[in-house]
């Protein structure tokens, strides 16, 4: 059914369809609407789950860790400071191979405190072992959460999946979303969670043992393999979803107007909408330009990205996060992927934009394209700065 839904409603509605048994979260803007909707569903009996109202994000993640170890489906959501506070536990959930799904309503990180959108928070968790998927719009946010469980719970994966949705831009914006009418269909796509090892009094195992130097390296090697292997499972999840529900927004990556393109803009998340509008206009004006959407940031789809970019001239990477003391994150990884495959014909320029909720307008993007095509190997340069403000004395 087509409905006009706020992003948070779309997410909570798709979570309802996946029937998690234990939900635990701690409020933080802009995640609040998601967990408020879920609380209401539990209060109304529309979702039969234990909603554990914890005293912190650290405990929210710990509650879902404990519940997940019992073999039940779990859900949590957070943003920014909350995600950083959870960090220790997320590493643990991944290390213990538990299929928790969490939403990150992407938000800037303090200081200065800002409730507005960028991707610095989820970027800080990129090495945690959690799979990171990034949604472009409310429809995709809806679909991606259902796929997230399918990926997380695959016996070959068994890892947390973090679904990143841009705070406010998606969580608080109304869009038309086509929802699934019959929960049976979701159950068919996503069978009940069936874990091999659980906390079970009839089959007792000890979870979370001490890893001596003699086993730690191998344990982490396995973890690394699991997340690398999940690429094909992410692709399967997207294809199966398309077959069952008729919706497809890409798997690891997606391409837009890239045939014959010599310039391609690479980005993640909601900013892709604005970028595509600009590209449409430029295409009409005869420019050979396209868009590469990164849908899975972890595992990093290096082969797919290189395949998509290898014949173009300029890749312009727009990033809403920065590795302080280094520069671009996505652009650096793309450059590395190309270098590893000895492709040096692609000029990769990375620009940091839109931090802390700064609007990225069509004009910004247009200006950036003109500038970027004249530059080489830009590594995370800040773009869209207000120079007047920078030079002002307060």
């Amino acid at each position, binding site marked *: 059914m087509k409905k006009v839904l706020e992003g948070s409603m779309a997410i909570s509605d798709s979570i309802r369809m996946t029937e998690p048994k234990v939900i635990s979260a701690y409020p933080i803007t802009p995640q609040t609407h998601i967990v408020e909707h879920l609380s209401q569903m539990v209060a109304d009996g529309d979702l039969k789950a234990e909603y554990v109202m914890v005293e912190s994000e650290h405990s929210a993640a710990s509650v879902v860790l404990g519940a997940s170890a019992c073999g039940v489906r779990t859900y949590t959501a957070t943003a920014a400071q909350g995600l950083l506070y959870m960090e220790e536990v997320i590493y643990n959930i991944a290390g213990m191979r538990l299929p928790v799904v969490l939403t990150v309503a992407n938000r800037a990180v303090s200081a200065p405190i800002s409730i507005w959108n960028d991707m610095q928070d989820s970027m800080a968790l990129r090495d945690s072992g959690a799979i990171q998927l990034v949604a472009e719009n409310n429809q995709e946010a809806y679909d991606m959460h259902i796929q997230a469980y399918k990926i997380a719970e695959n016996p070959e994966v068994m890892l947390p999946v973090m679904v990143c949705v841009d705070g406010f831009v998606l969580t608080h914006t109304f869009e038309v979303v086509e929802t699934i009418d019959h929960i049976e269909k979701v159950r068919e796509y996503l069978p009940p969670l069936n874990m091999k090892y659980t906390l079970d009094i009839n089959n007792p195992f*000890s979870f979370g043992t001490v890893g001596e130097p003699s086993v730690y390296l191998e344990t982490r090697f396995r973890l690394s393999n699991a997340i690398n292997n999940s690429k094909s499972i992410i692709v399967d999840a997207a294809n199966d979803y398309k077959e069952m529900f008729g919706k497809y927004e890409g798997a690891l990556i997606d391409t837009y107007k890239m045939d014959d393109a010599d310039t391609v803009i690479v980005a993640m998340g909601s900013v892709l909408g604005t970028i595509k509008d600009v590209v449409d206009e430029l295409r009409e004006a005869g420019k050979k330009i396209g868009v590469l959407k990164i849908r899975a940031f972890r595992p990093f789809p290096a082969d797919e990205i290189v395949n998509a970019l290898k014949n173009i001239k300029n890749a312009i990477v727009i990033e809403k996060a920065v590795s302080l003391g280094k520069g671009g994150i996505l652009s650096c990884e793309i450059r590395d992927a190309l270098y590893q495959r000895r492709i040096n014909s692609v000029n990769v320029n990375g620009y940091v934009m839109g931090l802390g909720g700064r609007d990225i307008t069509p004009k910004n993007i247009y200006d950036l394209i003109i500038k970027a095509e004249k530059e080489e190997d830009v590594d995370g340069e800040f773009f869209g700065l207000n120079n007047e403000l920078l030079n002002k004395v307060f």
Partner: protein
Amino acid sequence: MLLRLRTIILKERKLDFKLGIIARPGSALSNKTGSFRSEIPVFKHEKCTGCDLCIYYCPEGVVFGDKKTKTYNFDDDYCKGCGICAEECPVDDIEMFLVEK
């Protein structure tokens, strides 16, 4: 190089993930802790009253015995020789001896 990495990954798929994170119940029994010990108890079976205190207090849980026969003893594979049983036996029916090494 990339090719080799991929073949290792494929083989790993068939394995489960117990390594380093999940252990079997009670598997510590395979660790015979008796080897740390520098002293060893001797249960003399002379004045024992069958009070069971040595069973309660042994930190390793290696002492066993029957109130009726009063012939308490311990599993020397695991006893760490702490001496608590001897110290606490109300009738001094347990004595510690140095282990010859």
